[in-house]
């Protein structure tokens, strides 16, 4: 089929069309009101015109066009096709036919005459509209070509539905690249949030720099099909460089990627000087203020004294704010309002920094406390005739002021013990080949969210055998039972436990270490002992940075939610069915180590059925690890600690409460008590089993 000469196909088609046209015109004589006939005639004419032009019958196209234009009023129904008009139309048809079939022997005078006749019947409105339109385009070209330029800067903004119309903006960028070296930067500020994003829409805009000597027409050509579906801002590159844009205006354009090429320098230039002025003005005022304040500031530049209660109050307010902010965040994240989300995020950030600043304001270097002990050590060493060198390190380590006050008494106890029990007397030191002077080190150091305070002596170390004997004597362990040294040392923290053979003014009454331990644990800290015979003893206190806000792990047991201080959490594991099966023996195998666990559901007497997959949170205090079995681990939670009321002071499992984002309360688990409970339980099970 494709081998057939298309011109021949056109001639055949034209012959058919002429028959249709003639038939329609003749029928119009009978039924001048039949619109369908008019349309039919027009369609035939139209095709002849279009195809004729295609196959080189330019005269046909030109004449048909004129004829069609003249006939336009008939088509619109404004003029009824009279007999005379139809006669002219038929003549025109014959003429066109002659143009196609025998172009050489057809005189154009006939055609002109026919057209003149036609124009007599119809008013000649806008007959020359088309040629005018054609002239416009070439006129624009020379102007654009007149001046040479380095290229173009384009800003392309397409209508969002452009992809639906089968146009691919990337293809257009491709076409631009063919014109010269092209650098296109997508502008993404129009992309909406995911939930509002229509996948078939185009949200991207492009900022394009095109280095090419092409003229504007070539660029218009690229966008010819979409010129009315896009905003194309076009500026010659050179011309832009010539614009003596104020430097500040240009900077803003770069920083904000301000894309409106032509508009930017003009619009942005206005605010720029203002912006430039503002900081300058501020500086000026600041400078003058400084000058005015200088004499005063020199005196009290370092600190402002604030009543401690005010700081406490401030911390309370910040705590409330953090809770309210958590609620806002939860509310915002459940909705779809973008602006609320943004505000919630902003407030979250502000609340966090306000919290840190407030907490920072409460922080005091621990050095203020250490200073007090110099006198204590001095007095003790003189009284006991034990020369002691007292060394302190990390004085500038900061701790919450409240904690520092709470720390004073425990540290006094520990230092007393170190001198009284730890450091040997002169004779024994000499026998052991040690220096005459004992040494006590008091150190404070940051470790993550905790502060470690250690009291270290280079004395004789703990006498494990004597502690054991004492424990057996008091019935704390069965004689001959296998107990690790570390466990034996823990007896030092038992109430009423003292191995001191003589009760001195300083120690030996057994009211020291248990009080120390309780005080530290009340601060949610922990205490550790380590000792080497003949080398000394180290007591380490682990303390949280602050009392007011902690990082917590939010868990769920039944319908209730609880917080475990994150500092105590070691890891989370799934409770395997085989771990649950061993009834009466609550031990969990964690990488080969047996860890006792507590089922919180049983502990809290939770009703209802447990979740299928139970989770175990391994917590630790010092060396001891214990698993807590919960229904669900929800996640990290910024926990503002609220103390329980006096009515609940006898509740031992919980150290406090907090308020969650949804306004409900969650209890904070007392890790120390739970570990003790788990140990007691496992001991009971062991003894039952035995």
């Amino acid at each position, binding site marked *: 089929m494709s081998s057939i000469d298309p011109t021949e196909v056109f001639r055949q088609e034209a012959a058919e069309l002429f028959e249709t046209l003639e038939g329609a015109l003749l029928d119009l004589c009978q039924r001048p009101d039949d619109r369908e006939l008019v349309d039919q005639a027009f369609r035939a004419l139209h095709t002849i015109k279009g195809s004729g032009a295609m196959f080189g019958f330019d005269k046909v196209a030109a004449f048909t066009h004129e004829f069609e234009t003249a006939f336009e009023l008939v088509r619109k129904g404004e003029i009824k096709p009279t007999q005379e008009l139809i006669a002219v139309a038929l003549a025109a048809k014959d003429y066109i036919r002659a143009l196609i079939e025998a172009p050489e022997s057809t005189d154009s005078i006939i055609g002109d005459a026919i057209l003149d006749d036609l124009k007599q019947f119809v008013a000649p409105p806008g007959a020359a509209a088309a040629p005018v339109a054609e002239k416009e385009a070439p006129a624009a070209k020379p102007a654009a070509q007149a001046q040479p330029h380095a290229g173009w800067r384009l800003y392309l903004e397409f209508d969002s539905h452009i992809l639906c119309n089968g146009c691919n903006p990337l293809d257009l960028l491709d076409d631009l690249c063919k014109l010269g070296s092209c650098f296109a930067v997508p502008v993404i500020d129009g992309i909406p949030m995911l939930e509002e994003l229509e996948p078939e829409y185009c949200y991207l805009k492009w900022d394009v720099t095109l280095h090419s000597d092409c003229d504007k027409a070539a660029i218009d050509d690229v966008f010819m*099909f979409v010129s009315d579906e896009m905003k194309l801002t076009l500026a010659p590159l050179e011309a832009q460089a010539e614009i003596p844009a104020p430097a500040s205006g240009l900077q803003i354009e770069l920083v904000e990627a301000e894309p409106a090429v032509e508009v930017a320098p003009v619009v942005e230039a206005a605010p720029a000087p203002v912006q430039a002025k503002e900081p300058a003005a501020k500086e000026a005022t600041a400078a003058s203020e400084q000058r005015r304040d200088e004499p005063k500031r020199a005196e009290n530049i370092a600190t402002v004294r604030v009543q401690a209660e005010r700081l406490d109050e401030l911390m309370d307010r910040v705590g409330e704010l953090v809770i309210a902010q958590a609620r806002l965040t939860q509310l915002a994240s459940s909705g779809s309002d973008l602006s609320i989300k943004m505000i919630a995020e902003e407030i979250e950030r502000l609340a966090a920094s306000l919290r840190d600043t407030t907490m920072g304001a409460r922080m005091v270097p621990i050095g203020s406390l250490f200073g007090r002990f110099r006198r204590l050590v001095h007095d003790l060493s003189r009284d006991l005739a034990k020369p002691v060198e007292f060394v302190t390190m990390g004085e500038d380590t900061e701790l919450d002021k409240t904690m520092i006050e709470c720390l004073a008494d425990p540290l006094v106890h520990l230092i007393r013990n170190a001198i009284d029990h730890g450091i040997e007397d002169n004779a024994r030191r000499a026998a052991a080949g040690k220096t005459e002077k004992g040494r006590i080190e008091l150190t404070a150091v940051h470790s993550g969210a905790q502060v470690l305070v250690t009291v270290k002596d280079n004395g004789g170390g703990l006498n494990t055998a004597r502690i054991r004997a004492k424990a057996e004597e008091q019935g704390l362990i069965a004689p001959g039972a296998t107990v690790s040294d570390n466990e034996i040392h823990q007896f030092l923290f038992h109430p009423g436990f003292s191995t001191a053979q003589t009760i001195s003014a300083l120690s030996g009454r057994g009211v020291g270490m248990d009080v120390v331990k309780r005080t530290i644990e009340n601060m949610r800290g922990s205490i550790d002992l380590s000792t080497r015979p003949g080398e000394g003893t180290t007591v380490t206190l682990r303390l949280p940075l602050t009392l007011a806000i902690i990082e917590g792990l939010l868990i769920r047991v039944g319908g209730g939610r609880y917080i475990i201080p994150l500092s105590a959490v070691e890891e989370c594991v799934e409770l395997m069915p085989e771990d649950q099966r061993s009834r009466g023996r609550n031990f969990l195998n964690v990488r080969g180590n047996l860890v006792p666990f507590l089922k919180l559901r049983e502990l809290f007497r939770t009703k209802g059925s447990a979740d299928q997959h139970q989770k175990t949170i391994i917590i630790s205090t010092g060396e001891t690890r214990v698993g807590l079995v919960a229904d669900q681990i929800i996640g990290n939670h910024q926990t503002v600690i609220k103390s329980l009321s006096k009515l609940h002071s006898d509740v031992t499992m919980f150290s406090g409460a907090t308020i969650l984002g949804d306004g409900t309360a969650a209890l904070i688990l007392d890790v120390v008590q739970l570990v003790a409970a788990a140990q007691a339980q496992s001991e009971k099970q062991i003894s039952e089993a035995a």
Partner: protein
Amino acid sequence: MATVLTVDDSPSIRQMIKVTLEPAGHSVIEAGDGAQGLAKAQASRPDLVITDLNMPVMNGMELIRSLRKQPTLTGLPIVFLTTESNDALKQEAKSAGATGWITKPFKPEQLLAVVAKLVRS
């Protein structure tokens, strides 16, 4: 290479398009009016549709609108043929969903350029 559907009631135009595009490696499917065009577009999923506007049974404007409603043919480039540079008509066709247009008379190179512009391999 692209599959092009040409919809025109004039066999000579269809022929013209065919003899222009086939030597360039494209395959051409023909339809004589809008209704046929719609059916063939659904059946053969062309890469490009070239349609006349003045056609019996279903005109080009209706064809464009119907094609745009086909969920399987989203993003299909549609080019319409127009004789006069009638902006109102162009506007109507564009808002119906046309991608571009070719003004009759056109030279074979122009047709090939439009196909190359709208269809990427």
